[in-house]
């Protein structure tokens, strides 16, 4: 993927303080296209797709949302909490729409590992193939997602 002028604009939107306090890039110094290329490759190596990963994230989010803010058990062995904090965020990929600050915590009771992701993460993975930069507070490592959420090809 090539870093287009549009991607330059998007990367500027992702800096700390533009849309969110911490931004979406963390300590990652790579170009946006390099970050996305690396995650795309990681997803392909696992035989997965962004849409399959996002679909599993959404599935567990919807199951957890039935707890109405409380942690809830989701078969076969997950504990899921879905809650929200005040506010909404626009997507840094420069299109219309706001996303509520809803976050999902999934704990895999078999492995003891857990991941925390937001509705914005689900959207950015599904629509843009973006998992955030290394060191960003809500960076989603594709391999960790696949392992903890038990996503299979």
């Amino acid at each position, binding site marked *: 993927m090539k870093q287009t002028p549009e991607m330059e604009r998007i990367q500027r939107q992702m800096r700390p303080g533009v849309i969110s306090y911490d931004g979406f890039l963390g300590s990652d110094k790579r170009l946006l296209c390099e970050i996305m290329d690396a995650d795309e490759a990681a997803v392909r190596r696992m035989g997965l797709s962004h849409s399959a990963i996002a679909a599993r994230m959404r599935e567990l989010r919807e199951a957890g949302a*039935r707890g109405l803010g409380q942690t809830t058990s989701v078969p076969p062995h997950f504990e899921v909490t879905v809650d929200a904090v005040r506010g909404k965020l626009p997507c840094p990929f420069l299109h219309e729409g706001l996303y509520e600050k809803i976050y999902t915590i999934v704990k895999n009771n078999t492995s003891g590992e857990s991941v925390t992701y937001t509705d914005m993460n689900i959207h950015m993975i599904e629509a843009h193939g973006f998992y955030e930069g290394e060191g960003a507070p809500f960076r989603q490592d594709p391999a960790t997602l696949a392992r903890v959420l038990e996503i299979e090809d």
Partner: protein
Amino acid sequence: MLVSFIIAVAAVGAINTLLAILIMLADATIGNYGDCKLTINDAKELTVKGGKPLLSALKDEQIFIPSACGGRGSCGLCKLVIEDGGGDLLPTELPWLDADEQKSGVRLSCQVKVKRDMRLRIPEELFSVKQFSATVSAINDLTHDIKEVKIKLSEPAAIEFTAGQFIQLEVPPYELTDEPVYRAYSIASDPVKQDEIELEIRYVPNGICTTYVHKHLKEGDEVTFNGPYGDFHLQPTEAEIICIAGGSGMAPIKSILEEMARTGSKRKAVYFFGARSKRDLFLVERMQALEKELPQFKFIPALSEPQPEDNWDGETGLITEVVAKHVPDASGKEAYLCGSPLMIDACVKVLQEKGMSEDNIYYDKFA
């Protein structure tokens, strides 16, 4: 050769100096808006230094506009009417303003910079909002992820608030933030206690304020907050009351109930509190004591997933199911809800199905 080199170096140096002077001039003229006059509600005039966001400029003048996101344009709370001098609407404001608001001059005060004189409309109640210096007098674990923080006021020494209102706590710079940020928390204590307030703060992963409170704040620390804010409060009617909360949504409901008990309210009230298991329940003894103090009050805690070791013989299921079971007819009653937006949306639906008018449902949504 050497002369040419010296001339080239001198030329580059001269160009750099010229550019630096131009930048300094531009900074002093283009970026300097000088003093600007803010006329508020046609009555009050303030002179502020231009260049800052309006929200910050007003805060410097001790006028506090509610903002839950620290001025990032992501909460939409800091709306004001700017009648003149606000300039064009900014792309960062548009998602928050409907067509009527845009026509009426409503703006996000955190996004609009003071660049010229302005005429503003600010709700009168915000002039009673103050900034307080205080000391943390106690921190107690209410559950594994909710802390009760008691804050003793220093200057001013007392706060007047209505049960149900919230304050904005300032988080100083620390490992997660380079600048002070503010977050909104409902007051849990009785308004009669004006020299100390109680907050109930649930840990949110990566949350700047909740991480600070849960992992850094300690008894004896000095804190700053401003408030009170909000219009979530008990309506002055005699209607039966249904309160519903979960997690730290307990706070404003507790404040309302404490005030009802102190004033000897005779209103019939029921309070449904949702938790997952017993370890998520808190202040149960205080609620049971309130049942004795308020003759017409009933507290109904409900666990969605009680654990075997809980030996729970109370209500089980989602809070919506428990409300539906206990409230066959909600018409004519009032509801006060506080908690997760997911819980509030689901409860509003159930209450409306039970005949409650939407106008009688009051809520403080964490979103």
